[in-house]
């Protein structure tokens, strides 16, 4: 049997809670034993719009957290921005609704075997998977600092509970409505120059990931980023979600961000070429 999608299963998950937090919805699903296969960085693909919907493709969302509780069994939390018709539909699902999901999908953040100094950088709802990641890193003895940014305060997702797992948390908004005014990438250069961090984990808009990659380029800092490309299938069969990535052989390949990602090595992604194809294509 193939190794691709090897933990993935399709199931009807029940909405256990759906709460508005700022401009997002925090939605909790009952997914039973599937939580055991979910790792920080993985995502879920959700069927939207109900039975007779004209929307035929699933929508992808990062798994924010999973947990197991006595009363609900395994649960999975998503942080969803009501963006277009599909995500708005999801945000409108009441408690008790059943939703068709495929999970877990994609690569996970690599967890260091030894304690390291980790910087977690999240943009907008990109912070969602970082809190679960912080817990895992913390358990491994890592020092975990977090930077969150967004255009405005209502787009910062930073739950109280989540903050326990981080050593420090700093927030940046472009309009200054929360935390510092400015971009989340601003303090990173100093942190790198001062050799305060060994690895950066990032999740957020492609521009942010690209900017971080530029800062880590030529340094020893490892940059693991969760990319976000439009996906038609989420399971590797359609080839719509590709990114140019430098391979070990020094050649650029168009890799599928759904199965070779979403977590990728930021240093290998050819950011300047995203949305293009490499030279020399027939």
């Amino acid at each position, binding site marked *: *049997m*193939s190794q*691709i*999608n*090897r933990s*993935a299963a*399709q199931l009807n998950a029940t909405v256990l809670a759906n709460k508005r937090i700022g401009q997002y919805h925090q939605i909790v699903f009952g997914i039973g034993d599937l939580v055991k296969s979910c790792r920080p960085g993985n995502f879920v693909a959700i*069927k939207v719009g109900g039975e007779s919907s*004209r*929307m*035929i*493709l*699933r929508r992808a969302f990062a798994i924010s957290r999973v947990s197991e509780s006595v009363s609900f069994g395994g649960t999975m939390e998503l942080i969803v921005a009501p963006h277009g018709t599909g995500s708005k539909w999801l945000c409108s699902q009441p408690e008790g609704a059943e939703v068709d999901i*495929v999970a877990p999908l994609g690569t996970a953040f690599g967890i260091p075997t030894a304690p390291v100094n980790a910087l977690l950088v999240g943009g907008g709802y990109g912070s969602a998977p970082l809190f679960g990641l912080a817990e895992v890193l913390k358990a491994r003895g890592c020092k975990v600092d977090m930077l969150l940014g967004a255009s405005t305060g209502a787009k910062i997702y930073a739950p109280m509970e989540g903050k326990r797992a981080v050593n420090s948390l700093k927030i940046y908004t472009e309009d200054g409505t929360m935390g510092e005014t400015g971009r989340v990438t601003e303090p990173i250069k100093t942190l790198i120059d001062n050799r305060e961090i060994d690895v950066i984990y990032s999740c957020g808009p492609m521009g942010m990931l690209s900017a971080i990659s530029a800062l880590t380029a030529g340094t020893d800092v490892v940059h693991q980023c969760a990319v976000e*490309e*439009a996906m*038609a*299938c989420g*399971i*590797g*069969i*359609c*080839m*719509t*979600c*590709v*990114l140019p990535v430098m391979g070990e052989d020094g050649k650029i390949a*168009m890799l599928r961000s759904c*199965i070779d990602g979403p977590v990728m090595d930021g240093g290998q992604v050819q950011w300047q070429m*995203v*949305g*293009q*194809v*490499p030279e020399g*294509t*027939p």
Partner: protein
Amino acid sequence: MADGRPGSGRYTLNTFDFSTTLGNAFFNTPIFTASGCASSGKELAQFFDLRDIGAVVTKSVMNKPRYGRPTPRMAETPSGMLNSIGLQGPGIDAFLAKDVPWLIEQKSRVIVSIAGETVEEYATLARKVRSVAGISALEVNISCPNVENRGLVFACDPDASRRVIDGVRRTIGGEIPIIAKLSPDVTNLPEIARGVVDAGADALALINTVLGMVINLDSMRPHLGGKTGGLSGPAIRPVAVRAIYQVHAALPNVPILGMGGVSSGRDALELILAGASGVSVGTASFGNPSAVIQIQRELHDLLIAKGFPSLKSAIGYAHRVEEE
């Protein structure tokens, strides 16, 4: 009651014959993946056993490795989607060395789909495919731009279509059947179909995607990197049914592998009644990774419920002339 007429559920799971043939290739079931919608098969193996379906039709492969088109490569549209992948792939050599052996090891039936930019490239591809054992059929995707003729899509040009199939036929010999995959974006589909059959195609695959475009209202430019894209999914099912019906009426003895918007057993039956001997499931797998196997099960049960003694007796049944 004459053979091939549905009775009233007299046929049971045990006596029902679900098999089909395309040229001299035999398949246990008539439900296949669609080219480009199952990659090379591995990715779907987590969701069902590839041996259980009729065949895996692999993504159209070209002679050389290929990056494909720039992103965005997809846009969702009402009950459909546009894609512009541009035939990204590893090239035929790597494909035959790695992907095909894996499928054969899984005991999956394999239909290899090839695509070229010149008549010569198709022939080269056919020759390479011929050298590998265990392939059930060759699907020749001729909905590709012909670089030798102003990029005009082969399948839109009766003469170029014929020449591609003729070249493939002569290279591959008579061992495995040739399925010519046609585009619906033509004025006279039966004419193109007749041409490729005369040139040696054993079967026809209908339909490839319909040419479409979406304008992005933010950038106010074409949304796809490749500007135009291929429309697939339920939106085009009526076009697929019409194409299959038309071609089956014109060429009743040529088997058709039908596809286009099939997402349930009832949809598959519609294509079969119109004249398809087998049905490929494409876009439906994107929305539902188990679509292929679920559709196969639904079709099986539906054929029995309708009283057909076999899959074959349902093929083209909508064309029957007798009065009820």
